[in-house]
């Protein structure tokens, strides 16, 4: 049996850099380095492991991103980890697309690519909404098996463990399905030198909105379902009191908590 896995990966600004908004209140991508969202590395890792478990068969891992020119870096990273090919949806009219729009574009690109299993990260490290996997499941009309800390595919069934607030549940669904994995699912591998060299030769297909039959007016800043009215930088915290413990640090801290009426 062949198994076609599509992994959705997002290109995001480095969280340890100085992130801000541009004049049009979208993410300013010029001032800060971008990279493959760290949480999507876990998705790539699980895709490669599932493909590896199907080594007798023909399993193929395609990484998919919707993003600007530089988002190719995220695809290269995923290819160097071992993914087989990449799809890049790139179009100037996509600038400012929100979650509803992104899910529309991803769903169309996934359908065009062909899939048995879609794997996403648990959330992007910039928007951090954690909603795209559920939206893709809804749009594609296939089961959602999300927020898994453990995942496996046997025959035509995907199984996984979801650690929820009130309980840990074991889930099962038939393929095709949309999965998302958490950072508890297993450390992501580092690309090897060989992997990095091989990635340079792997195919990266570019698609634009026309290829996906999407009207420009349905996505981008104009077509967005949401609008940001204002973005203000949080005022710097006023410097707090910092004391060295000279043996009475705990007692002094208790005094502070009393003064703030916590005790």
């Amino acid at each position: 049996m062949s198994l076609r896995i599509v992994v959705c990966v997002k290109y995001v600004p480095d969280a340890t850099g100085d992130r801000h908004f541009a004049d049009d209140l979208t993410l300013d991508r010029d001032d800060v380095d971008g990279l493959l969202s760290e949480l999507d590395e876990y998705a790539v890792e699980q895709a490669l492991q599932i493909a590896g478990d199907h080594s007798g068969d023909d399993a193929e891992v395609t990484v998919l991103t919707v993003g600007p020119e530089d988002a190719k870096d995220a695809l290269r990273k995923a290819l160097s980890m071992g993914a087989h090919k990449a799809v890049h949806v790139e179009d100037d009219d996509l600038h400012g697309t929100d979650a509803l729009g992104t899910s529309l574009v991803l769903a169309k690109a996934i359908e065009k690519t062909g899939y048995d299993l879609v794997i996403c990260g648990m959330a992007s490290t910039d928007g951090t909404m954690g909603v795209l996997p559920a939206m893709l499941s809804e749009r594609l009309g296939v089961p959602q098996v999300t927020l898994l800390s453990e995942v496996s595919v046997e025959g035509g069934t995907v199984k996984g463990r979801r650690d929820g607030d009130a309980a840990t549940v074991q889930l099962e669904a038939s393929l095709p399905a949309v999965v998302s994995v958490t950072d508890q699912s297993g450390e992501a591998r580092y690309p090897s030198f060989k992997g990095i060299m091989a990635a340079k030769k792997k195919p990266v297909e570019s698609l634009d909105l026309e290829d996906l039959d999407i009207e420009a007016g349905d996505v981008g800043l104009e077509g967005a379902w949401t609008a940001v009215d204002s973005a203000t930088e949080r005022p710097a915290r006023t410097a707090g009191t910092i004391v060295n413990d000279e043996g009475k640090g705990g007692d002094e801290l208790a005094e502070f908590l009393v003064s703030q009426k916590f005790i």
Partner: protein
Amino acid sequence: MAEVLVYVDHVDGAVRKPTLELLTLARRLGDPVAVALGAGAADTAAKLAEHGAVKVLTADAPEFADYLVVPKVDALQAAYESVSPVAVLVPSSAEGKEIAARLAVRIGSGLITDAIDLTADDKGPVATQSVFAAAYTTNSRVTKGTPVITVKPNAAPVEPAAAAGTVEALSVPFGEAATGTKVVGRTPRESTGRPELTEAAIVVSGGRGVNGAENFAIIEALADSLGAAVGASRAAVDAGWYPHSNQVGQTGKSVSPQLYIASGISGAIQHRAGMQTSKTIVAINKDAEAPIFDLVDYGVVGDLFQVVPQLTEAIKARKG
């Protein structure tokens, strides 16, 4: 007056605090109509009525427990169609966000997640979000369809406001997708008797500096002296010292208590993303250069094994 649909988070009929906060916010936009699903749904009505629900739509069916998320979306959609609300509000839990996401796609509406405040404007609700690890505060609106907004715990005070709270059974036509993802096993989380991490007024967290599972007893003792919840950094969780369900941060819980006490935590950006909106922040760390000190209202540079037990004793002594 316009109606606002509020999705109820409850455990066997006991309404969780974030839902009561949602009702406070919903009343700024219109008359709250609550949707309670699953076992004990009808038992939520009295509490919801005390907090302003004019109507409570309830449904119970095995599907809600036996399959993941989608049956609840079918129910919320049925409620949406019977009410025609001006907004749909859902608590920002992992599941709440997924329910909201699918509903937004179905009804062709925009979605805003993790609001920390909501106000009414003539163009509809305005949601405040805290983004980029709390470095920015934004105001956003939904511009297409009926706003679907998920709201974080502690976004508003719980304010009683008596209302009719008429209970109505909601009839839910489950779609084909409802039974797509089976729940084949369930292990409930054991209760620690401590407050829920995301809802607690005080959170006491430990990190790599706690240096061992057994040492977390020091952190727990401090938490118990304050009636607080216990949190942990990812380093402590990854080391197996504390359960993942207690992790605070980007990939753990996001907390916004009145008081956050971090011990042996350096303050990495991913940890800050989950606690930076706490009202008062206190840190105990032996490294004066630790980035956590940039956030604190009060910091102690010192050994947590000295400072924390002394603090716990001082608190106990004062409380008598």
